[in-house]
């Protein structure tokens, strides 16, 4: 289904974390299929596959952006409100008129970038850590949304809705777009200097500084990319809903889910190591989980319980592994001697 370019396994001994997440995905799919079939539905039916892939599109876009930010050691909790903001701006600029589409997209992404820039500047210049900075900026945007929008607004022309609603065979167009953008970000991280510097700053600000990097720039860039990806997710939702909505971002709980998907994909929460494709694996696991729970008509309240437990367990597995390395010495992360 998804194109997985597993990076060349460097050391057989230490399984690359991206490979681990895809093994986990297969396991989840197998268990899911068994569960679903016991209830008499076919897990691999066209509708079910499309449901899973659609579920991956929006969360995928947000999680890819979140990956870039987490790689620098920062974090973005403002994504839900950026999603809603961008869906509203796009829908209101287009006002149902097909030739406004380009302007609507550009305007929405521009505002998303402004929020990303604000996040980046607060983190790097005011030295506020990512969690509080993006929480603050998110609340600022939320206040603006609640005050100025009394419900869905604007409208999206049919041509733009085409993206959200149709697909080629089982694969919805939105998923293809998501994977394409994930590839763009993957190549950006692999092929541009800023991409390399994002990894470097996340690994160690000290070493980066000693190597002459301006350490603020990659972090600001990462925050802008994350917000722009959230903006793109907002556009996708606007296309699916046909209108902009001030609550569509927070309805999906994208902040917590995107962070969990990134960590599930093997990216270190402290930054420095991680892969876009690992995150996509994490997103797929959550999408399959949701689809299975819906198929077996799981009580909606229990769905939240399962999600909460899976998120903490996923992070525990990874940090638990990371912790082993650290436990040998109290003081420092790596063994200095």
């Amino acid at each position, binding site marked *: 289904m998804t194109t997985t370019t597993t990076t060349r396994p460097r050391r057989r001994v230490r399984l690359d974390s991206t490979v681990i997440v895809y093994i986990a995905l297969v396991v989840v799919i197998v268990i899911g299929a068994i569960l679903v079939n016991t209830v008499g*539905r*076919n897990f691999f*039916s*066209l*509708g*079910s596959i499309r*449901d899973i892939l*659609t579920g991956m599109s*929006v969360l995928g876009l947000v999680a890819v952006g979140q990956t870039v930010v987490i790689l620098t050691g920062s974090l973005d909790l403002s994504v839900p409100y950026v999603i809603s*903001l961008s869906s509203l*701006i796009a829908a*209101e600029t287009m006002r149902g008129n097909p030739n406004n589409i380009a302007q609507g997209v*550009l*305007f929405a*992404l*521009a*505002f998303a*970038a*402004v*929020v990303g*820039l*604000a996040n980046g*500047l*607060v983190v790097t210049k*005011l030295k*506020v850590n990512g969690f509080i900075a993006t929480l603050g900026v998110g609340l*600022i*945007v939320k206040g603006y949304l*609640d005050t*100025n*929008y*009394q*419900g*869905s*607004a604007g409208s999206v022309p049919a041509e733009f*809705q085409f993206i959200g*609603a149709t697909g080629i065979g089982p694969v919805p167009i939105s998923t293809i777009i998501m994977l394409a953008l994930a*590839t*763009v970000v993957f*190549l*950006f991280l692999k*092929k541009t200097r800023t991409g390399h510097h994002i990894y470097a700053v996340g690994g160690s600000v000290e070493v980066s500084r000693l190597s002459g990097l301006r350490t603020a720039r990659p972090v600001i860039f990462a925050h*802008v990319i994350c917000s*722009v990806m959230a903006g793109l997710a907002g556009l996708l*939702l606007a296309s*699916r*809903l*046909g*209108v902009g*909505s*001030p*609550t*569509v971002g927070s*309805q*999906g709980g994208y902040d917590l889910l995107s962070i969990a998907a990134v960590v599930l994909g093997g990216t270190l929460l402290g930054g420095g190591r991680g892969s876009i494709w690992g995150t996509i694996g994490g997103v797929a696991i959550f999408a399959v989980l949701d689809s299975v729970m*819906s198929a077996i*008509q799981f*009580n*909606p309240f229990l769905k*939240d319980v399962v999600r909460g437990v899976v998120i903490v367990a996923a992070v525990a597995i990874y940090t638990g592994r990371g912790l082993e390395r650290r436990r040998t010495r109290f003081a420092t992360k790596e063994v200095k001697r």
Partner: protein
Amino acid sequence: MRRSINTAAAIVGIAAVVALAGCTTDPSVTTPTNDPPPTEEINWFDQAVFDKQDAERGVTPEGPEGQPWLQYINAEFTDTSAFASPGAKKVCFANASISNPWRVTGWITMNQQLKVLQDSGAISEMETRDAQDSDDTQIADIDFFIEDGNCDLFLISPNSTAAMTPAVERACATGKPVIVFDRGVLTDCPVTFIHPIGGFAWGIDTAEFLIGNLEPGDKVVALRILPGVDVLETRWAAAKKLFEEAGIEAVDYFTGADPAEIKKIISDELAKGDVKGVWMDAGDGGVAALEAFEDAGVDYPVMTGEDQIAFLKKWQSTGITGLAPVYSNFQWRTALLAVQKIFAGEEVPKEWILPQKPITASELDAVLTVNEGMPDGHYATFGGEDLPGYPEVWQQRIVP
């Protein structure tokens, strides 16, 4: 591939320039709203619908006596003979959520009604997908049912009006019957749209009641749960208009249905001056509002709440001049009964407007006896008195 990276970089570049231009002040205080696009204030007030519902309020509903869930007002029937076919049918239900007591009550009633229809062979099974208050999820649910549900009928309780419209239209396009209830959609392709008279009627009933019991210039505090839900917005739009016309000084607050928030708002208002009336767009936290008056040691206001047992009991015990407008919780039964009618080829109203008669002081005691032992979060017009499992199932709140 390289071109797309250039374009992506270009977009980001443009954005950065736009941002830098716009971001002159200290970044942390930049609210990214330097020059937002013109946001025309959505005006929820629609005079035509207002008049329509105002009229419907007066009409005595037709249909079987004592079964309000089967009654209808000003109905124009549609012929469903095309769908008539024997045998038990599979219903696919895309539910917005069961995240508040009103919806939980309706959901329990619907499942009891389902048992009845399964025994009578009208429905084989009902597959439900819960969107947990998310538009995007509900669209995916509807698309899943269309693709894979092999449903004989689509039953949809939309999460929000405009966002669900495209998906509902796709459901209609399958040629299978579609029933929409509770919140509407901006298309008339469903076989029937089941809903009580509507928000404007609620607004008129409640405003007229308050105006009747208050003097011009008296203060009314309007407590509203949250912005943007059409059902709630229309209630306030109608009431606001009547209050202005009657010279009542009405001030509205958003409470998020949090009783603590409600009590704070009322206490602040009482600190500013006396409050003669309290209007609510939904009953959540009505008891907390009254308790705020008790704590402040002022006499009770004239108040309109909702048919929530908690409010009705408090109303009964305090004896305030009150009114309990209803949003006819029994519509959750009507939705399934309509399925039976459609496959039986019986005609059903195109727009099935259910009665929405507020509970007045005189009917209060009778309503409370029917709902004896029901939990506070229960809604009096659940209409399940004649369904199996009454009253235990509703008392124990076993949520399927």
